[in-house]
């Protein structure tokens, strides 16, 4: 039972264009969401997060949008760069769970020059 789903295993985008990565969740009690980025042969690194009291959080080229009614979040990368090519995982957490995260399956982004 996958509580956090990333339904697109892969995405290919041209350099300079927008990349949009999507994530859906089923548990309405999740109240904190994160995006991680993973290069091959490295561990995931934290990218950006959003609390459920917000609907948008922006950090440079990266923006996360949260739609609680649809139980959906998305990561926008503008403009996309070849160095953004990686696997992106969304994750969700609940309060009082010891920092436990539930991860999606990941989306592999390829940004072509």
């Amino acid at each position, binding site marked *: 039972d996958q509580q*956090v789903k*990333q339904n697109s*295993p892969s995405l290919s985008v041209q350099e300079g264009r927008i990349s949009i990565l999507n994530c859906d969740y089923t548990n309405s009690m999740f109240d*904190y969401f*994160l995006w*991680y980025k993973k290069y091959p*042969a*490295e*561990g*995931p*690194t*934290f990218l950006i*997060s959003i609390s459920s009291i917000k609907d948008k959080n922006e950090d440079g080229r990266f923006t996360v949008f949260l739609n609680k009614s649809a139980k959906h979040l998305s990561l926008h990368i503008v403009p996309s760069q070849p160095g953004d090519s990686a696997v992106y*995982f969304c*994750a969700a*957490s609940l*309060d*009082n769970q*010891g*920092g*436990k*995260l*539930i*991860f*999606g*399956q*990941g989306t592999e982004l390829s940004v072509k020059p």
Partner: protein
Amino acid sequence: DVKVTQSSRYLVKRTGEKVFLECVQDMDHENMFWYRQDPGLGLRLIYFSYDVKMKEKGDIPEGYSVSREKKERFSLILESASTNQTSMYLCASSLGGWQVRETQYFGPGTRLLVL
């Protein structure tokens, strides 16, 4: 800079062997986690610990155990390795205790092959 290190990058073991995966963090973090990453399944939590000698089962604890004797070290143990435990194993740590959500910092991973 937070540093999470894992004892091996690659391991090859035989079915039935007892396997130890070690993880060390150098930032005095309270919480430590073990995940496995498999294609199409993402990262799945095996066990986590929010204090020395404390452990909690994650989503897929079967076939695994853990040990946290010191704050900086969290070990994952495969009691009797099986081929379906072939995977990438990732260790992570975060600053806070039970009620605090903090960013998790990951090690580079150990790719385990069980023959």
